[in-house]
């Protein structure tokens, strides 16, 4: 878009994008509600009766937001995020997503230990002999607090099973 300058995404673009996404969600809600019946059954209002109007209101609000984006944010030169900041946010967000994926596969204890050690080592520039024990320490603290203190289990993976911890 011509609104975008070389150094970032304009707020106008993001305003439009978000309003379009919420609008699409609203349409999906309406569609889903009609699918299960948004009318009147012998038992009174159908299951989709209430959500259908909610969906309509989302669509309505999103349309107004699109109009307001044009009125308030077009050509103002407001930047949503520039390249430098986007890099900083990504450096936090991507490891976080990787953590989610590792946790789903190896469990939250191993995931936590790897995540904390890795972020400390790569981003905090700590030596590995500080980062690794710190990661393991946090993981162990979680085990003591959740598993033993409050008796709520956390997600465990193949590694714990291998050690016989359930």
């Amino acid at each position: 878009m011509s609104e975008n300058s070389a150094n970032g995404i304009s707020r106008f673009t993001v305003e439009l994008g978000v309003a379009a996404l919420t609008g699409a969600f609203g349409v999906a809600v309406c569609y889903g509600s009609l699918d299960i019946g948004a009318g009147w059954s012998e038992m009174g209002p159908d299951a989709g009766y209430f959500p259908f109007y909610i969906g309509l209101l989302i669509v309505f609000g999103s349309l107004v937001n699109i109009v307001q984006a044009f009125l308030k944010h077009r050509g103002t030169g407001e930047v949503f995020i520039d390249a430098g900041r986007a890099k900083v946010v990504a450096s936090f967000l991507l490891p976080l997503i990787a953590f989610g994926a590792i946790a789903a596969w190896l469990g939250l204890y191993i995931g936590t230990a790897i995540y904390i050690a890795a972020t400390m080592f790569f981003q905090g520039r700590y030596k590995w002999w500080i980062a690794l024990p710190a990661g393991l320490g946090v993981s162990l603290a979680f085990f003591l607090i959740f598993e033993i203190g409050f008796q709520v289990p956390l997600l465990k993976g193949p590694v714990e099973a291998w050690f016989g911890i359930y």
Partner: protein
Amino acid sequence: MENIGLLIDGFGHILSWNHILLMMVGVTLGILVGVLPGLGAPNGVSLLLPLTFSMDPISAIILLSCMYWGALFGGSTTSILFNIPGEPSSVATTFDGYPMAKAGQASRALTLAFVSAGLGALAGVVMITLLSGWVANFALKFSSPEYFAVYFLAFASFISMGAQSPFKTLVSMMLGFALASIGMDTISGNLRLTFDIPELIKGVSFLIAVMGLFGIGELLLTTEEGLRFEGIKARVKLAEIGRTLVEIPRYWLTIARSTIIGIWMGITPAGPTAASFMSYGVARRSARDKSMFGKGDPRGVVAPETADHSAGTSALLPMLALGVPGSATAAVMMGGLMIWGLTPGPMLFTDRPDFVWGLIASMYLGNVVAVFLVIATVPLYASILRVPFSIIGPIIVAVIFSGAYQVANSVSDIFLVIGFGLIGYVFKKLDYPLAPLVLAMVLGDKAEDAFRQSMLMSGGSLDIFWSNALVAGLMTLGLALLLSPLAFWLIGTLRKRRHDAAPHGDGNAAA
């Protein structure tokens, strides 16, 4: 008075070492989440909630409500010492608190903040003690249409009183309702809006939404802004505390005014953030000597703190008596009550008086405990903030992921939290308010049930919402609030047009 007797019974229920210990744990954890960036009161309460499922409800609510008080205090601490509000509601405290601390009056500013906050909170609890029974009795007359009207009023006031664009508030709120309706329909048993995705059958928990929106979203914002703590060495000196305590009565007018603002904003769902800003504004406007405001005027600390805490406590009145929470944190706590098998609302006062009055009694005690604990532990928490963000940030993420998994022992919730985090980040940057979304997610099912039962009673006609004076009054008030932004906008443009047409008419009014 009847309420006083019930309150004394309430104290009887909670006065045990066990409960006092829980209060201290709650307040300590609360201060911690209040101080840490990315963890606020709603988030902290959400994270702690799964851990209370096995506790008895009285202990659990003591722990959670004390965490709330602690978080409110913790937020003010960072505002004053680091110029970083730990909570949105303590933004106004930074205006004068940080300049005071910079001028070497850190202990004075902190003591002023904590004591006036404590006074505000106590005033809120006294109000709850006196009014809750009466409000609950009144609400016992409510049936489904009245309940729907109360919910409607609450949501309408969000749209009209919010600082953000009313349409952004509308979208945010309706997204909350839509998310709440995902999964099994409680009345017909049908599956709704699952789009054949098996993970959606159990629905989307509001706890996951809070953890993502407020937790991960806030952390992303914090990283983007490149957080730097330029803290002020805080050593709270006893002599200075004493001197400040003597000074407090001088601010009685500011405290009284801020308390009233706070209580009003807390009962109506405007919440603590709006209350603290408004109270700060009123204090500045009504001060005879405005020159010190923004440069370290003690009234600029007292006013927002008193209002923040009185609003925070008052927010529990509509939650307990009507089942309509007054703030995002109160909404999360209300969700907790429902998970423990209690139904917030007027019936709670007759069904479980021990719980209600135990909670109210714990609010008196918890706030006193909080004031002492926070004064004693300020230096400790100040040192936590000197730990680099590259350690604190990932630990907070790990805590949030663990909390998200514990809500329903489900792996998909971990990814849902990341998704909500992204939404929270983008919404925050575009000024979409998040509190209405959370409130709608918690109240969604109840509002829908009230609406559908009303429709059943009337056979599908909307006339039922105008069938008697009470429900008609509530609905009319709600509609008036809903339309008020439009009216203000129209008046504004008309004035402007008239002004443009006659630019030399009365020139003084323009300036």
